[in-house]
């Protein structure tokens, strides 16, 4: 393949991504002025309910969270810092009062499980969160249940229990501060922290 052709294909691939990112950031502005973390962009993508778009929507998420990527240092080859890898999805969203992992969530978790199996020295924290509705202590337990469901899923996919620390913040650490469904959707989540 010529260099020109490579660039051309790359451009074709990137254009929809750029459009999508633009899209999701506008919808973010509309739904949630008080967004406090760049994770919301990934979330806006997930809200669309399409796995692939969810991943691209998550483009900024891990890339920005990862220092090496942010500083523009040379690409290490670690798939963790590859913005196009499904590993860039670090947030799994849930339905209200539910701890069931969606299909999109499952595919992301499968990628993480595969990665963690390859690198048995890596340890992650699995952090459960809920939206603000209902009572606080119940939500603390619900957040833990979500985190456990994610950990169990990873274990079933071959990750060792020693590689996962499970914790819950319940409704105490929201990423979106509004009191409406679009904020609640972003807050019902499990975060994978490497």
């Amino acid at each position, binding site marked *: 393949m010529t260099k020109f052709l490579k660039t051309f294909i790359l451009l074709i691939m990137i254009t929809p991504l750029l459009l999508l990112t633009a899209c999701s950031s506008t919808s973010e502005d509309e739904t949630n002025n*008080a967004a*406090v*973390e760049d994770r919301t962009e990934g979330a806006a993508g997930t809200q669309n309910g399409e796995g692939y778009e969810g991943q691209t929507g998550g483009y900024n998420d891990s890339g920005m969270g990862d220092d090496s990527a942010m500083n523009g240092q040379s690409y290490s080859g670690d798939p963790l810092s590859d913005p196009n890898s499904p590993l860039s999805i670090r947030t799994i969203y849930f339905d209200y*009062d539910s701890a069931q992992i969606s299909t999109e969530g499952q595919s992301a978790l499968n990628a993480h499980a595969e990665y963690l199996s390859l690198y048995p020295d890596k340890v992650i924290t699995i952090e459960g969160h809920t939206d*603000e*509705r*209902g*009572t*606080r*202590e*119940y939500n*603390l*337990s*619900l957040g*833990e*249940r979500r985190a*456990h469901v994610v950990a169990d899923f990873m274990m079933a996919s071959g990750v060792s229990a020693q590689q996962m620390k*499970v*914790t*819950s*913040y*319940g409704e*105490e*650490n929201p990423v979106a*501060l*509004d*009191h409406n469904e679009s904020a609640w959707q972003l807050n019902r989540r499990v975060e994978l922290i490497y």
Partner: protein
Amino acid sequence: MSLEATKHMKLFTLKPISAVILLLIYLMFISSPAYAVLEVEIKGGFQSANPIAIVPFAWPRSGSAPTDIARIVRSDLARSGIFSPLKLNQLPERPALGGNINFDRWKNTAAEQLVIGAITPIGQDLYEVKFQMLDVFSRQEMVAYRYTVKKNQLRRVAHQISDKIYAKLTHTRGAFDTLIAYVVVKNDPGSKKRTYTLAVADSDGFGEQIILKSRKPIMSPSWSPNGKRLAYVSFEKDRSIIYLQELKTGQRKVLAQFKGINSAPAFSPDGKRLALTLSKDGNSEIYIMYIASGVLQRITNHYSIDTEPSWSSDGRSIIFTSDRAGKPQIYQIAVGPQGKAGNPRRLTYEGDYNSNASYSPDGKNITLITRVQGQYRVATLELDTGYLQVLTHSSLDESPSYAPNGKMILYATELRGRGILEAIAVDGRNLPQRLRVLSGDVREPAWSPYRSQ
């Protein structure tokens, strides 16, 4: 033409004033970030409330008394929703203690009772406070008391006077001389950081004292039965840990830091045990801990979530939230010195979300959060009949807490995007006071037990 001119004048004069107000608000924001200070909003009285006259207390010196006791009593009584104190300009005279009272003039007012009093300095930082309540029609004294206190205790004396008046007229112990604990959260959108403050204030929101400040969440304040200690959950070590803190000294110790969740502390009525939620054995279960020894008794054993325990005042049963039937509902379980003394019995059947219940002091009712058409509201459940009464009309209510006399419930709710505290009478009567903070959210109110004198 002249009208036009005055209009302009008004507009013109308004501007600098609003600028000054804005500046003041701005200064408050930047100059006092260390305090959460509650702001009290009176929502207006009730037509049906009993009128009562509280005359400003006499002060023998020039200037004004160090504390306006009558004013505090008036606002306490109005806050109960049961009384409607006369306004100052509705008082026909201001009689002195022991002086002449023109009862005929008082009969022309709406008031059926008349309260008069005096504050007298009697020594270095020492005051004598006397008051008397009279029946306007029989002209008889109904109650009278005298206190000798330091200056910083005058507010508390005012609340104690409110309690005496309330008890005499309602035959129920008053709960004005009590404290509330609560959590204040401030979001700094710039730094994306939050500040959590656990604080204690008088039941009317004054006299705030900071118990703990943290960058990490603080949850679930719970009073010891003697009112001297608070148990709470803090995430300062990035996970939930239960602490016990002495209010007077600030001394604290860790009560529970097991693997997993450590949450929902609730003191037994004898103060020796703590009901709590731990997930150390896999998922959230209710335990009882003997505080002195740390010995644990496991109370529940189910793969569902069991949490939010609350003791009955006789210490013989615990109610808790469990989703063992699919959705959160309230269950009751008998407990004894050996721990679990029976099997859980479901108490709530109405609705698909009932949680965070606590017993009324007389043990006949519980208050809880129930979901009605997608809205989370404060309700009470009469245990004998199973009658569920929804008390509020809001949508994001949390943390209902009974006053120690069982007449009011303080709870957290959301108003125009802000977390505030509201009180409601157990008969559903809306109470005219609301507590909020200047910036941030206030939540998780916990009403203290009665204070020792």
